[in-house]
């Protein structure tokens, strides 16, 4: 395809540029350097530089969230393509990447989903070292509670699929759940008693901002330009091919434009008339004031529509399923906190006096099968990495890696081949509803 040709034409100069920029060398983070700067009182250098908008780039990525930043980083780091601009209409990591509840896991339901998210977990495990930025990945374990026969059946299904894929995942009984999390009420007192759980020890939480900033800093050091407060107003095409974008800061020409805008994905794709089966719903979250750490794992209850984890700072972070109505509003609702609170107290009755400090919402671009849309579109040079619903953050690294490979080679990597846009026309849906709907 012509996409590959446009790739071939950009690769060489980019590679040389990357090597030049890399030779400057970033400021390395280490305990020793912290000590040195503490003693000498010297400042840290800028992690992300500011640039004027260039006239052209080899690749323009729209959206400086974890997907866009990871894609830019892997383009530079794995493929030597550094003449890349990441554009964001607001500040970096300000969308779903900074609003999610930062839960990482790979116990999905379909073989395609399991393989994909497991690669993401592997990348996350090594991310701190790769980026020289501690992303504080805490693999504390992940419990998906079952309160009904039906959900226990789904847990068993997931566990069996996971085991065959080599994922550490198993169904445990209520007593075992109680041994792992002493604060959970595993008695038969609750209206919906805990019958068991899907236990996924490698799952956990991560510091989402650190992931965004770590990718941004590493990409910046390799020569990628991150342009915040730069809104894309239109995408230019000629003869069915992308030629550039128009922004509030001027026009840019580029043969490849990647849509990594999650909740706003359809507004960007509409600019080139690429229709995607996405509906944007708000997803809300809330956090309590801190108490001493008492919750050792991530806890998810699909039946009660709630998930909770405790940060190292001691705050409980809650979430639920997406709001039932489509909207671009990011305001929190009272009903959300009420319902989350009542469900949390069903699970952990003793914490009624803990106070909710803050609530917020993010936007989720939901697909019919709860799997993403990744890869090429009918418009040559216009690529998408969207449809991230409520599970985008987990997939940041693997998506970036795969999209970068697609851009660099012109070939769709096998690991994302099931997630193509054409599947909706061909009837090859990748059903993750059972594992993804409230499955944080």
């Amino acid at each position, binding site marked *: 395809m012509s996409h590959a040709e446009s790739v071939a034409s950009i690769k060489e100069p980019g590679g040389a540029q990357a090597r030049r920029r890399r030779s400057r060398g970033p400021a390395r*983070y280490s305990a020793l350097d912290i000590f040195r700067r503490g003693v000498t009182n010297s400042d840290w250098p800028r992690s992300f530089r500011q640039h004027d908008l260039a006239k052209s780039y080899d690749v323009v990525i729209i959206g400086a969230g974890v997907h866009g930043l990871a894609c830019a980083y892997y383009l530079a780091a794995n493929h030597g393509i550094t003449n890349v601009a990441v554009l964001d209409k607001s500040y970096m990591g300000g969308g779903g990447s900074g609003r999610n509840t930062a839960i990482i896991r790979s116990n999905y339901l379909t073989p395609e989903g399991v393989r994909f998210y497991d690669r993401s977990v592997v990348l996350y495990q090594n991310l701190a070292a790769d980026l020289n930025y501690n992303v504080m990945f805490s693999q504390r374990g992940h419990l998906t509670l079952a309160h009904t026969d039906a959900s226990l059946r789904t847990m068993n299904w997931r566990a069996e699929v996971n085991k065959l894929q080599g994922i550490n995942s198993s169904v445990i009984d209520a007593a075992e759940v109680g041994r792992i999390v002493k604060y959970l009420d595993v008695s038969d007192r609750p209206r919906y008693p805990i019958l068991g759980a899907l236990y996924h020890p490698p799952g956990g939480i991560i510091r989402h901002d650190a992931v965004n900033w770590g990718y941004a800093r590493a990409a910046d050091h390799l020569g990628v330009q991150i342009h915040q407060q730069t809104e894309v107003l239109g995408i230019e095409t000629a003869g069915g091919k992308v030629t550039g974008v128009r922004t509030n800061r001027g026009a840019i020409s580029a043969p490849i434009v990647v849509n990594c805008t999650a909740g706003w994905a359809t507004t960007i794709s509409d600019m080139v008339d690429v229709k995607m089966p996405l509906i944007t719903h708000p997803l809300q979250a809330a956090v309590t004031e801190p108490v001493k750490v008492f919750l050792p794992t991530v806890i998810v209850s699909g039946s009660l529509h709630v998930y909770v984890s405790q940060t190292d700072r001691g705050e409980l972070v809650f979430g639920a399923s997406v709001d039932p109505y489509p909207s671009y509003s990011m305001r929190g609702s009272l009903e959300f906190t009420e319902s989350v609170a009542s469900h949390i107290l069903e699970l952990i009755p003793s914490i009624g006096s803990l106070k909710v400090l803050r*609530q917020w919402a993010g936007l989720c671009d939901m697909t019919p099968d709860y799997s993403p849309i990744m890869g090429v579109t009918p418009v040559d040079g216009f690529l998408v990495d969207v449809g991230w619903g409520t599970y985008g953050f987990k997939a940041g690294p693997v998506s970036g890696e795969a999209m970068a490979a697609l851009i660099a080679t012109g070939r769709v990597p096998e690991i994302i081949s099931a997630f193509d846009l054409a599947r909706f026309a061909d009837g090859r849906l990748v059903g993750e509803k059972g594992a993804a709907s409230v499955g944080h």
Partner: protein
Amino acid sequence: MSKPVSSRINSQSGEVIDRTKPINFTWNGQPLTAYEGDTIVSALMASGVQVISRSFKYHRPRGVLSASYVDPNCSVTVSDEPNVRGAHRRLREGDDVRAQNAWPSLKLDVRAVNQLVGRFLGPGFYYKTFIKPQFLWPSYQKVLSRFAPGGSPPAPGGGHGNFDKRYTHPDVLVAGAGPAGIAAAIEAARAGVKVMLVEEEYEIGGHLRYGGPEALAALAALRAEVNSYHNIEVLTDSVVTGRYDDNWVAVVQRSGVWSHERLIKARVGTLVVAPGLIERPYVFAGNDLPGVMLSTAAMRLLELHAVRPGTRAVILTANTSGDEAVERLRSAGVEIALVIDARTGVTLRRAIGRGRLKAVECADGTKIPADLLITATGWTAPTSLLNMAGDRPIWDPVAARFFPSELIPPSVMATGGIVGDGTIDQLIKHGRAVGAEAAARATGATPTPVPPLTREAHPALFHGPTTGFLDFSEDVKSKDIMAAVKEGYDSAELAKRFTTSGMGTSQGKLENVNAMAILAEATGRDLESTGTTIWRPPYAPISLGALAGRAFDPVRISPMQPWHVEHGAVPLIAGQWIRPEHYGDPSAEAQNVRTHVGIIDVTPLGKIDLQGPDVVKLLNLVYTNNWDNLQIGSVRYGVMCAEDGVVMDDGVTARLGTNHYLMTTTSSGAATVWETLEMWLQTSHPDWSVNVTPVTTAMASINIAGPNSRELLGRLTDIDLSPEAFGYMKVRTGSIAGVPDCVVWRIGFTGELSYEIHVPASFGLHVWETLLSVGADLGVSPFGVEAQRILRLEKGHLIVGQDTDGLTKAYEAGLGPLVKLGKDDFSGLPELRWQESLAGAHSQLVAIETTDPQLVPPEASQLVVGMAEIVGRITSSRMSPTLKRSIALARVSGELSVPGSRLTIVLPNGSRAEAVVRENLSFIDPEGVRLHG
């Protein structure tokens, strides 16, 4: 200075303590006394305690800062309740008060060692270290997590306490009862509307309570006026935490007889926002030392609680609040060492002391010994509720604070310090004007603007020449913001996230403006363009218990459930319903149905009464099959698909009369189907005349199944049950056991001759018991859900949601014959038409037999090819009591679904087993002889 001394002073005219009512309490186990009306912190200070807490990161000793709810230094644990705001909470007799975040004691906190390494703990230091070696990170992380601030969570055990909610509909709700707020409430009440006045403190009055004789006189007059109106409800120790769409307002009431905290949900006509102003701390070295506090804090302690906050004071003042503090402290016997008038451009350099203020270093380097340093350098407008109504506040460089923009809807108004300045009289006058207008708007008048309050100039003061604490609850210093900007975190949101400034317990109420000012300086912008981060709800923290209210999730049971329990039924939680799983031996129950007759309570089955001339159109739209020719007296099985062709529900629908149908759904799908019917009727076909009435709980439903069922039912009914008169898939109405108006239809989920009866719910138990008593000789016995599952599996009938999943389309569920693609339209038609063209390519539901007849492969066991290529799964499996062998349904990929295919099953324990695909889904009676008998 020797031992810090603070003590109770003589009676003050505005004091809220009752000296006739002493209270005993303990502080870290030490017994102390106070008076009723004391806050925890005023009681401690009256007893000479200055250090209330240790800070989050550096574990520095901290004392009173604002002496209000938002005081970041005064969180304590009371009994087992963590994070109690000690500067707000009034003491109760016997309170066991303990310091938090200090170990082993408040006095000697070993983690204070963090102060020594503070220079290495800059913003985001954790992002820069513990990176390698990776295997040590989990250990580091465990250590880090021990530094989490706050109290300990209450120990597990017991219920979640007694919480409640209240709903109310005031015409005008005033948030904040300072002079302007009270005046607004009075004037609204005068107009005759229903008013709610909500005040965070324990008394109304705001700053009038500690403003001296003139203010107290004004307050007394306002109080009298409030008391004269029966249509003002005053809530104290309560705060408006959120304003949502259409003035849906959340109020948290913090103390009361009913519970710990109560959530009040109010639909408000006009919301008047009158929270006053929050005094802003000043940033300089040592500004967190105990003994350094805000002017309003000193006046609260002095005037409300008669506590002298120090003995020798330095005051930095830029406004009348600071000037007043000087006078009040002096008259309370505090020695005034120095007054620094910041309006003249003079400031101080630093506060000196270790664990306690010892001296203040002036700009010229002179050191003034003092144990009290008061700052009065400016105000922050708590615009949170206005933000929630759509406002984006604008910085006024002259008044040196944010003011609301004009973006608020007419149903939200503001008065008091949040919108301007003035004398007490001017504030009251503005409040009255706003209150009158609020009442008018609430009763439908066209909004007219209220003339604004004036704004007074105030110097813009944020920090001195040294760096100090910016966010006390997060231990963020001003230099941390500078460092963040240098590293590239240079916008309001990035700097906030990187330094965590504003993310602690006070949520930016004290520190946000200082943070923005320092950020603006560091980036070379002004405050107007830097703006502010967005205040999100809740304005004030609210407990999980108050949000949750009572644990209330009703249980649904059939009228026969007490009988089931009495007869040893093992309960099954099936969604909202609780029903019998079995009565001891499900296998025997199933066999009795095959050999004699059994009855099962199927009341949870969804039942929807449909009446009207257009019912058939609706049925044709929601079901995949054809309903044009269903005769009166007949029932038909139907499958519903969502628009993506996925099987959504199934059930039978009977035609009872010309325009009268009774639809049944699965038990779990009852609500969804009802909503779906209403959705189609209301959105796409409002012209169709159909009345949809859910009648699930109006009828008790019993299935009578087995070869003796005709004989059993025949003994109790006037309906002719002969095969000629009442064939398979027919419906009749008549009386059963003396109960008229029962519906009976002949269907067979179990594969046996069976009748499903629907009787008025109140007669359910009567009919159930009568069936059992008259059928003893026929071998009748009850059976539960488990026996029914066995029976239907033997017959090969699928269960939607178990043998299908969120992606299973009708053809994949073996329901192809029920999909009538020739119909004009039905839900899922385009998808199913397209899917039909791909016949064979998709997975199929098949019946399988394991090679080992005694091996029952657990449900969810996977079917594989080779080592791990998944090609399907077991969806249902049981040991068949009829066939004495294992039976199962499985979903397998198209090519393996042909009869005779050999399948490899991976069992949960990892071992493998073989199975063969059968010809037919039915394991017993594939010809339906029993069913049609």
